[in-house]
């Protein structure tokens, strides 16, 4: 459906489109400006395809100078700008505006330098996540954050969302692996944030920029930290008769002194779906499985593997499989990695949530999700970055059945409220975007939201960058608060959260 921006978030301007295209043509080649309706259509949504909006215009610059010129022009004419990488984001952060410019960074796709001796890579924002590791592999290095969309998603988008991935448990999120950014501000100024050293002078703007969802500046160059490739990897698969036991095993592993490279959990519904889809060899009668990957120096991995195996036995794992060779490991991982499409095979549609909770709340929250699932009459399968408490409940629904999408959204929002109440957060790694913007009103007070707006103003005083995303206006919250407490359960036509 077409997304409707909240009135308080709309940036109005009276600029004539054809006239603005003529201005743009002075700084960009004609083929870098897209204005035909049919050519604009592919840009109408990102990975959150439930909402669409055909953009006013799309531009495809291929240099920092062009981006600066575009931003200057937009700023001078009060035209809002939305940045877009590969469009794989799951929260609608790159959803376009009907009166705004969509700035695609797809053509800035070159790896500029790999500095093997300092273990850094300097890349343009449109470089795909996986290609950084591919290109640095010859130096025995890799780029650690590995979101599951890594073959398609770009590093610029990763910075915007502070992307995680399976291996961030040991190696950190994007924020822990970025050293330097070049950004272009809404006013068209080029600013360097961070540096090639491990820290930099002044306020830590890298922390603020990372995960800022394109609200503060356009990321035009990224220097990332590279990590030496481990010389040994071992993957352990353990089955459990209850989620409770699996959760206790996770807590024990995390407190043991061994930091796994990845620690993932799947519930029975996900196990069955994945097994049916890719035949990874999962025990389909298990209530939960854990996948625990250990990597590093070979002598350390051998020792750690032994310790993890004894913890798993202590917590009554019904089956433990150890995979040392990469072929076997890939087979086991294939089920986890294909969990989303596997759910897609058994359900016409699914809606992926991203709440994060303190790990000790896991069984309580899963029980609540089960109750909500029964209440709404929609099945929920759970995959879970267990080591860091990041849940991905997948709500199964059929958009062709009248009312099911709305029920799925309502169930999703109730799950997010459970996450907040358990001491967690509405989003661990997918971002707020438009998807969870109303839930922000529940997680933060008005004065906290006001502080976010003030921070945005420090970078973008006129609020022209990605309006209507990530941080709700207080007007929206006032409206949402009224809806949420009195009517939300019955008014299914109201905006989702």
């Amino acid at each position, binding site marked *: 459906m077409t997304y409707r921006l909240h009135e308080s978030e709309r940036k109005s301007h009276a600029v004539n489109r054809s006239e603005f295209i003529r201005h743009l043509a002075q700084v960009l080649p004609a083929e870098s400006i897209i204005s035909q309706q049919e050519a604009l259509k592919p840009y109408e949504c990102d990975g959150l395809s439930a909402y669409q909006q055909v953009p006013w215009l799309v531009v495809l610059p291929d240099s920092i100078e062009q981006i600066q010129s575009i931003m200057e022009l937009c700023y001078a004419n009060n035209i809002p700008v939305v940045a877009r990488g590969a469009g794989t984001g799951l929260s609608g952060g790159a959803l376009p505006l009907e009166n705004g410019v969509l700035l695609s960074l797809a053509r800035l796709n070159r790896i500029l330098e790999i*500095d*093997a001796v*300092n*273990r*850094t890579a300097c890349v343009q924002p449109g470089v795909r996540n996986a290609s950084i590791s591919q290109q640095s592999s010859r*130096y*025995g290095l890799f780029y650690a954050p590995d979101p599951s969309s890594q073959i398609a998603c770009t590093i610029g988008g990763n910075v915007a*969302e502070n992307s995680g991935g399976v291996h*961030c448990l040991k190696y950190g999120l994007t*924020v822990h692996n970025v050293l330097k950014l070049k950004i272009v501000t809404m006013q068209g100024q*080029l*600013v*360097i*944030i961070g*540096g*090639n*050293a*491990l*820290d*930099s*002078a*002044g*306020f*830590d703007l890298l*922390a*603020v920029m990372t*995960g800022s969802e394109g*609200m*503060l500046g356009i990321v035009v160059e990224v220097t990332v930290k590279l990590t*030496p490739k*481990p010389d040994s990897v071992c993957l352990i698969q353990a089955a459990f008769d209850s989620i409770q036991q699996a959760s206790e095993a996770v*807590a*024990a592993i*995390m*407190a043991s*002194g061994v930091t796994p490279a990845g620690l993932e959990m799947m519930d029975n519904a996900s196990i069955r779906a994945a097994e049916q889809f890719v035949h990874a060899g999962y025990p389909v009668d298990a209530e939960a499985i854990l996948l625990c990957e250990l990597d*590093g120096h070979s*002598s*350390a991995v*051998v*020792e*750690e593997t032994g310790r993890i195996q004894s913890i798993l036995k202590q917590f009554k794992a019904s089956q433990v499989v150890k995979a040392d060779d990469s072929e076997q490991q890939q087979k086991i991982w294939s089920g986890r990695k294909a969990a989303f499409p596997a759910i897609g095979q058994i359900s016409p549609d699914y809606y992926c949530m991203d709440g*994060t909770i*303190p*790990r*000790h709340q896991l069984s309580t929250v899963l029980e609540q999700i089960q109750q909500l699932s029964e209440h709404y009459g929609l099945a929920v399968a759970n995959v879970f*970055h267990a080591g860091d*408490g*990041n849940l991905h409940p997948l709500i199964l629904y059929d958009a062709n059945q009248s009312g099911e999408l709305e029920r799925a959204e309502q169930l999703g929002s109730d799950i997010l409220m459970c996450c907040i109440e358990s001491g967690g*957060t*509405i*989003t*661990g790694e*997918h971002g707020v975007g438009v998807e969870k913007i109303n839930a922000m009103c529940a997680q933060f007070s008005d*004065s906290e939201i006001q*502080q976010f707006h*003030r921070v945005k*103003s*420090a*970078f973008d005083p006129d609020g022209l960058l990605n309006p209507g995303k990530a941080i709700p206006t207080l007007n929206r919250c006032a409206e949402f608060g009224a809806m949420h407490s009195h009517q939300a359960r019955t008014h299914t036509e109201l905006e989702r959260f």
Partner: protein
Amino acid sequence: MADLSTQFQELIRDAVDTDSRINFIGGGSKAFYGREPQGESIDVAANSGIIDYLPTELVITVRGGTQISEIQTVLDEHNQMLGFEPPCLNEQSTIAGVIAVGLSGSRRPFSGAVRDYILGCKIINGYAEILSFGGTTMKNVAGYDLSRLMAGSMGTLGLMLEMSLKVIPRPEQEATWFIEVATDQVIATMADLLAKSIPFSGMFYDGRRLFYRLSGADDAINQIAESIGGEQLVDHELFWEGVNHHTHDYFQDETPLWRISVPPATQPVSLAGQFAYDWGGALRWLKSEEVDSQVFQVIGDIGGHATLFRHGQHRDAVFQPLPEHLMQIQRRLKHAFDPKGLFNPGRLYPEF
């Protein structure tokens, strides 16, 4: 051991109403660090105490005035620790003070900086509002990351009331070895070692000997050390305390001390004085009489930044000067939190 947040909120509201400038003081252990404090001194150390600690969650929530030593004692009981090895220049060091200066110890290149361990915080801003950002989970992308912004802010953005920090289990075993390496060889030697997947947790060069610390199981680290070579250091914990808390011989000197942060494999820098390398070369201490403008120029040109850490003759230019566009954003960011410029004015830069 008390929650003084409402008292501090009133105090800050008064300061805002009367335009009074405030100099926040925690343990006072780093009063010498940064530009000259201004404004009325407010002791915030009494707002202390551990609020919540669940060892299996690997998270501790504490009030800002809690002493590092108290936190470490509690973590010790569960065989856990602060992963960034906080530099404590005396026993009174508080957690808010450590976060405000944003300094991390020898583990930094291997297990992360102080900012990497901050999961959430509660502050009072310059509108006298109590605000919470982040939380207690490892992953959280709701709203801008304003908790990590506190690290290194020198108390200029708000009073830190509480913070939630990620903690890590103590490695099963740690030991340190040293090898003699010539100054012109040490950068290459460190770069070679750091290119491998080895569980290092410290790498320090005193100008003659390269010290490396390994963490993990006993057998594993001994086996690795055998392949690298060198002699094992006795009393190695004392050694790293010396490096981190500046009781090591190198730091016993009245010559101005510079903290220089550069890409690790940067060749020896052409500044006069005596160097020591921490962080596998990425952090360089320099005892030198060089003039500040010269140090800032040379280090800025190689993509790093310098801080006049201690014993400067004057405290005007302490931190690396920033380019104008970047300074403009920083100034506006300060204004976003503290529009009247009341919190620790001038402590970081003269501009705010």
